[in-house]
C-alpha cells in the first residue's frame, strides 16, 4: 500500500488528514533536516518544520502538479525558512552567537571502530561546521543545504528556488567559497585545529 504522492495530494486537498500524514511521514526527514541545518538547533528546527508542513497543507489547493510534489515542497519550505529568518532579524531577539551556542543539538554517535575521543572530536568538528553554515546568508544556506545535504540536482534547485540554472551555479559557487572562507577564518581562531581536507569526509558520516 504505497500510493503515489499525487494520490495523497489529491486526497489531502479534500481535507483527508490521514493522506496528508502519509505525505508527512515520507518527507518529514527531509523537511526536518533542512530546517535543522538552516536554524542550527532542534528547538527552532521543530517549529520551522511544523510551520513548513502547515504551509504545505494550506497551500495544497493551489498545487496543480506542474512540478513534482517534492520540488514544490522545497519551494514552500524555503520560503518558510526565509520568512522565519527575516522575522527573527526584525525581532533581533536571537543573536547569531546565541544561535551558534544553541547549535549543540547533535549527540555524538559512537560507532564500533571509533574511540569515544574520536567521536567527541568529530562531534565538535560538526558543530563547528554547523556554526559556520548558520552564519551565512539565508540564500547561501539554502542552496548549500539543498545541494550538499539533500542532494538535489542543479535543475531541482532551480525549480525549487524559482531561478535559472546559471543563478544556481553562481550562487552555489559563492556559497561554497563563503563557507570555505568562514571555516578558514574561524580555524585560525582555533589555532589551525581544524583542517579543510581529509577530516570530516563522508567516511566519517554517521
Amino acid at each position: 500500500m504505497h500510493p503515489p504522492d499525487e494520490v495523497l495530494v489529491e486526497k489531502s486537498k479534500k481535507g483527508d488528514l490521514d493522506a496528508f500524514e502519509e505525505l508527512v511521514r515520507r518527507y518529514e526527514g527531509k523537511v526536518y533536516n533542512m530546517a535543522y541545518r538552516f536554524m542550527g538547533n532542534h528547538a527552532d528546527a521543530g517549529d520551522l518544520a511544523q510551520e513548513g508542513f502547515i504551509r504545505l497543507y494550506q497551500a495544497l489547493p493551489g498545487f496543480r502538479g506542474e512540478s513534482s510534489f517534492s520540488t514544490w515542497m522545497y519551494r514552500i519550505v524555503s520560503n518558510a525558512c526565509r520568512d522565519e529568518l527575516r522575522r527573527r532579524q526584525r525581532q533581533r531577539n536571537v543573536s547569531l552567537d546565541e544561535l551558534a551556542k544553541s547549535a549543540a543539538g547533535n549527540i555524538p554517535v559512537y560507532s564500533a571502530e571509533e574511540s569515544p575521543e574520536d567521536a567527541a572530536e568529530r562531534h565538535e568538528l560538526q558543530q563547528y561546521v554547523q556554526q559556520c553554515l548558520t552564519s551565512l546568508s539565508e540564500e547561501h544556506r539554502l542552496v548549500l543545504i539543498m545541494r550538499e545535504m539533500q542532494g538535489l540536482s542543479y535543475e531541482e534547485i532551480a525549480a525549487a528556488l524559482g531561478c535559472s540554472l546559471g543563478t544556481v551555479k553562481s550562487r552555489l559557487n559563492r556559497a561554497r567559497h563563503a563557507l570555505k572562507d568562514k571555516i578558514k577564518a574561524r580555524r585560525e581562531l582555533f589555532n589551525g585545529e581544524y583542517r579543510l581536507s581529509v577530516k570530516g569526509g563522508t567516511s566519517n558520516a554517521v
Partner: protein
Amino acid sequence: MQCSDVCELLSPYLDGFLKPGEQKQIEAHLKNCVGCQAQLEELRGTINLLQGLPEVTPPAAFRNELRERLQQIEQERPTDRAKAPKRAFYKWPGFMAAAAVLVVALGITGVWGSPARWFDSGEGLIAQLFSGNSSSGTVAVDNGKADRPEKQAGGTEKIVFAGKGEVKEDAPESTDFNMLMEPDGLSREDELLRDAAPPGAGVMSVPNAAPEIAADEEPRQMYMENMKGRMGGGAVAREAHLVLAVTDPEQAMNSIVEKANSYGAEVIASHGALVAGQREVDTVVLELQIPLAKFGPLWEVLNDSGRVMDSNINDILHSAADTGEEQGSPVAMVVIELKK
C-alpha cells in the same frame, strides 16, 4: 585562463557541471597551478565537511503535534473560505489587530520616487501603499485573496509589491506560530513558480500569506512589508549591511530613500516593525539596489544618516557564466536597518 577565472569555475567543475571545453581547460590549468589545486582541495574539503554532517531525526512527537495543529485548522476553517479574511479584516478592533495581504501590481514608471507607506491611522491596514506616486500605472489592491499579477502587454517590466501582515503572539514556551496562512493566498507560490519571471525581472520574495487570526487573540507585534524583485541591472557584485540608530525610523527611511534615489538606487523592499500598543514604527528595514559605481559616495551618505551600530560589506566574485546571464552594470545590494 587566469587563476581567478579558474577559481570561479571550480565549484561547477566539482559537480561535473561544465561544458566539455571548459572542463578540459580547467584540467589543463590545474596540472600546472599549485595555487588552484589548493583552492580545489579546500573547496572539496568544505563540501566533504558539509556532506559529513549527520542526519537528524524529528522528535518523536513531531507528527502528532502537527496532526493536532492541522485538526485545529480544519475545525476553524470557515465554510466559505472566500469570506474569511474579509470578515476577520473588518471585525478586528482597530489598527493593531488588522492584517492583510495587499498585492499591488503597477507599471514600472511610478515606483521609484516614493517610499512606501504602510500604516493607516484609521481602522486597519491601508490600501495606500505609495504616497506621491505620480505614475499613470495601474494600481490594483486586493485584500486577502490576491489574484496573481498578470503580465502587462509590452513585456516583462512588471513588478509586484506585496504588503504582508504578520502577527505574533507573545508566548515564549509555545511552539504555536499563530500565523496561519490563508490557503488561497499561498497557492500563488505555485503559480509564481510556474511563471518564474526572466532573470532580472523576477519576483524577489513570494508574497505568500494572509494571516488568519482568531479575534480573541491579542497581537503583540505587527510587521508590514513591501517588496518587489530586483529590477534588472547587472550582477550583484557587492552586498552590504548597515544598522543605524535614528530618532525616527520612518522619517529616516523617507530621507534615505530620497537620497538613494538621487544616486540612482532603487528600493527593493522595505519592512516596518512596531510594538503592540504603540503607533510608532520602531524598526525599519530597507533593501536598496545601488549601481556599483555609485556605491562609494552613497555609502558615506548612508553612514551619515544615523549612529552606526553595525556595518559590513562583502564583495562577490562572479564567474564568466554570470555575465552572460545577468546583463547590465553591476550593482550592490544594501540592507539598512533603522532602529529607534
